């Protein structure tokens, strides 16, 4: 969430799902198929529209289910979000509908931003996006008239070469309308996996320690070195054994989408993968396979022999969420308990135990100094949480005991008395003033041409989850949705001569998959939609590893493909 961090100083969802769904006068949902990806939040939006009369603007190339509830559906061409948003902001500025007081008091860089926006008059925007001019006006008017309006998005915004810029553009919109720091408003990126938020908060990122303390900051390095018993520039005389005591690296590391290709460049020699399935979830599957085949050593800690397990040298059996106790952090920064319901199956072990055992066996005593958190002897996850409390300011007061006693805690929650923070950026942005960013639209990396005339977008469906390791092993879910389906518009189906035949082959510059077609006007003509839940026809065989230059998120939402009938 680098985009929000640049605009506001904090990258997380600013509001809570219940305040958004109960207090927003309007929702602007862009790049989120909420009712399928975040279903229960999707129903909260449907309730708000039906029972509270909240307005809903959906911007999505596909006619997703939520469109049935929308006041207005903008069907922009894939990869033209920035142009669309700049165009809406042009109209808002042109009509003088912007929140002048808010802009004056709480933001900076407005003039520079405005100069860029003025290059997006409605006719030009309509040409780029394919959205009719009158719909642009209608949307801008709805947005200006609805206070507060909440903006909601998901991977449909971030999985583009311009993902970070897309997010900053949405931040611009909410500042322009003055919808920040209040119930029912805000910027609300919905996190995909159950604990993506927590994995980020806990320093599962190459550039930050827990709570987004930069790995390049001397203060953070000193703090973690002291806590973990490492050398941070002790004078030679104070060093117990100067050559062996570890130092923290102060260079930003590689992202997942760089670590794996790093194998072929000789950068990555060994991989420790916990519960992830890069073969299914990463772009350009063939390339991923090649890398994993070549890596010197791969240890995979998993509950199933996934597609990635084929390449593993060691497979360590972890446990499911039903076999361990600890916490998850949901998309609205709420930390909640997970409770062990059954003993680990067979000889499987909780993942925290396995990681700690590995650490103990890798680390020689001479490599660390005596320090409060140098060791790895944890009796349970609440002992780990104590360490998190001490080193992670936003989690300082979030203990298992408090959650167990029924307190509902959303970070930041710095102390044991702090009640938590349901809404961010009230009265003041984390970075002080909110920063308007002048953003121009960037065309997708791969535009359709004569050889690959159609656009493929990828994502998930209601009944499955990610690489499908869990949901493909669920009987009922497979009964309802048991194979990969590729959504094809009726017009294209006619052109392809799909009558009666229902299998199609989709080919990109990188690979080819075959699957059954689902003829539906959910997708516009010229676009197909595929998922990555099934190894026999995973969309990631076709996607490319072009990344957003800042976030390194791959462009999953726009791939040029050709579609053929399989007879």
């Amino acid at each position, binding site marked *: 969430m680098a985009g929000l961090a640049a605009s506001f100083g904090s990258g997380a969802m600013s509001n809570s799902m219940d305040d958004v769904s109960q207090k927003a006068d309007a929702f602007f949902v862009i790049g989120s198929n909420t009712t399928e990806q975040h279903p229960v939040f999707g129903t909260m939006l449907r309730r708000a529209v039906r029972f509270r009369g909240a307005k809903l603007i959906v911007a999505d190339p596909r006619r997703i289910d939520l469109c049935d509830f929308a006041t207005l559906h903008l069907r922009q061409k894939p990869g033209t979000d920035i142009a669309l948003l700049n165009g809406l902001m042009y109209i808002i500025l042109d009509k003088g509908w912007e929140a002048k007081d808010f802009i004056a008091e709480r933001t900076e860089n407005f003039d520079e931003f405005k100069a860029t926006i003025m290059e997006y008059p409605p006719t030009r925007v309509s040409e780029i996006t394919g959205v009719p001019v009158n719909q642009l006006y209608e949307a801008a008017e709805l947005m200006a008239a609805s206070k507060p309006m909440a903006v909601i998005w998901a991977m449909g915004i971030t999985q583009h070469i311009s993902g970070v810029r897309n997010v900053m553009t949405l931040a611009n919109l909410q500042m322009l309308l003055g919808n920040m720091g209040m119930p029912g408003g805000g910027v609300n990126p919905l996190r995909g996996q159950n*604990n993506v938020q927590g994995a980020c908060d806990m320093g599962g990122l190459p550039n930050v320690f827990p709570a987004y303390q930069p790995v390049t900051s001397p203060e953070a390095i000193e703090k973690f070195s002291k806590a973990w018993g490492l050398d941070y520039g002790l004078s030679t005389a104070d060093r117990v054994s100067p050559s062996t005591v570890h130092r923290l690296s102060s260079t930003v590391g590689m992202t997942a989408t760089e670590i794996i290709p790093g194998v072929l460049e000789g950068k990555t020699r060994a991989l420790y993968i916990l*519960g992830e399935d890069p073969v299914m979830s990463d772009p350009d599957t063939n390339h991923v396979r090649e890398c994993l085949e070549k890596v010197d050593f791969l240890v995979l800690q998993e509950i199933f022999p996934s597609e990635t397990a084929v390449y593993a040298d060691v497979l360590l059996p972890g446990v499911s969420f039903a076999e361990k106790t600890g916490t998850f952090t949901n998309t609205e920064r709420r930390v909640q308990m997970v409770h062990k319901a059954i003993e680990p199956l067979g000889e499987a072990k909780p993942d925290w135990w396995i990681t700690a055992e590995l650490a103990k066996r890798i680390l020689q005593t001479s490599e660390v100094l005596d320090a409060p958190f140098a060791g790895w002897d944890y009796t349970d996850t609440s002992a780990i949480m104590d360490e998190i409390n001490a080193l992670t300011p936003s989690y300082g007061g979030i203990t298992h005991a408090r959650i167990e006693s029924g307190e509902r805690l959303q970070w930041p929650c710095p102390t044991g008395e702090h009640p938590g923070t349901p809404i961010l950026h009230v009265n003041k942005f984390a970075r002080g003033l909110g920063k308007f960013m002048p953003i121009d639209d960037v065309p997708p990396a791969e535009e359709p041409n004569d050889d690959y005339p159609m656009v493929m977008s990828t994502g998930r469906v209601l009944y499955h989850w990610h690489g499908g390791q869990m949901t493909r092993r669920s009987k009922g879910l497979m009964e309802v949705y048991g194979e990969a389906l590729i959504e094809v518009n009726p017009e294209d189906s006619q052109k392809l001569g799909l009558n009666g035949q229902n299998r199609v082959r989709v080919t990109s510059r990188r690979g080819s998959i075959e699957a059954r077609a689902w003829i539906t006007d959910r997708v516009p003509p010229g676009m197909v939609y595929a998922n990555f839940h099934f190894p026999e026809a995973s969309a990631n065989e076709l996607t490319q590893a072009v990344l957003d230059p800042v976030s390194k998120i791959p462009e999953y939402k726009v791939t040029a493909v050709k579609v053929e009938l399989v007879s």
Partner: protein
Amino acid sequence: MTVNITLNGKKIEAQPGQTILDVAKENDYRIPTLCYHKDLSPTGNCRMCVVEVKGNRFLQAACVTQVWDEMEIETDSQKTITSRKLSLEQMLANHSPNCATCDVSGECDLQDLAYEYQVDAPEWGTKGTRYKVDSDPNPFIRVDFNKCILCRRCVLACAEVQVRDVWGVAQRGFEEIIVAGANTTMLEAHCESCGQCVAYCPTGALSNKLSYGQGIARARQVTKVTTTCSYCGVGCQFDLLVKHKKVIGVVSNPDAPVNGMALCVKGRYGYDYIHHPDRLKKPRVRRYLLEKKDKRLKGNAWDWIETDWDTALDITAGKLREARDTHGPDSVGVLTSAKCLNEENYLMNKLARQVIGTNNIDHCARL
């Protein structure tokens, strides 16, 4: 402005607009209910919550009747009790008689009330099996309208919680029945299989197919463990049902902070992967590691061999240390997991940075 009423002889101040049921609850008087649920619009159709209001010839349904100034209410008069018994008798007359083999026995509101009021199915009653048992092909939801008491909670749950309008009511009188869409199957009526209707159904008319026959409602055999969903970032909470060391089902926990009773199909019905036979139960290493051979050797070097934990952990630690010491800390990449606990992610971060000395750590937030 307050409204002064007398409830079972006690003077009480209430707010205008409150129903008799609201006021009774606030003051710790229990009025039995069946079709009423606090999340759903009250309909007053089951007649269990009837109370006597002084001056009124007919009993009033407490869930839909608002209080007025100087209202005098009796919640447990002989007249109300007789009326409730009669209502229950009529419901039981239209209901399958086989409580003993019913999946929800133990957690059935109808059974509880029949017991409380000591009402059995009447002699003249039960018409036997009028409808097909397990009549809908939905893979998650088991439908048996022989047990339906036409309370309409399912209709309201679908319309007001899920906002999907799958269920409706058809016919009149004795033929009255709940139907999906225009009397089709649930999935054809655009059911999303969220199971909200099952969660709100007070009887065994709607139950869970995946756990059918495992006695999920029999409290003596089943433990409930409250936990957080392992699928998406909404963070719904629910109770796992555990019997004989197995997770046999999921039920809503009304106190869940984010979602209350609501869940989606994956959260409510996607739990069976936990006990799937593919689960890894023992550490495995490739044969070449045990025999200290080259991994690219032809033959059986790449076979999986199951080992004990010490062997697998020592091999792994040795290999990671070797990469770190020979090629430098940045030759090791660590992928942590957005499916794992905060505590586990913290440890992965600590392992990468403290133990290995690299910032090459990431997870699938981007994917």
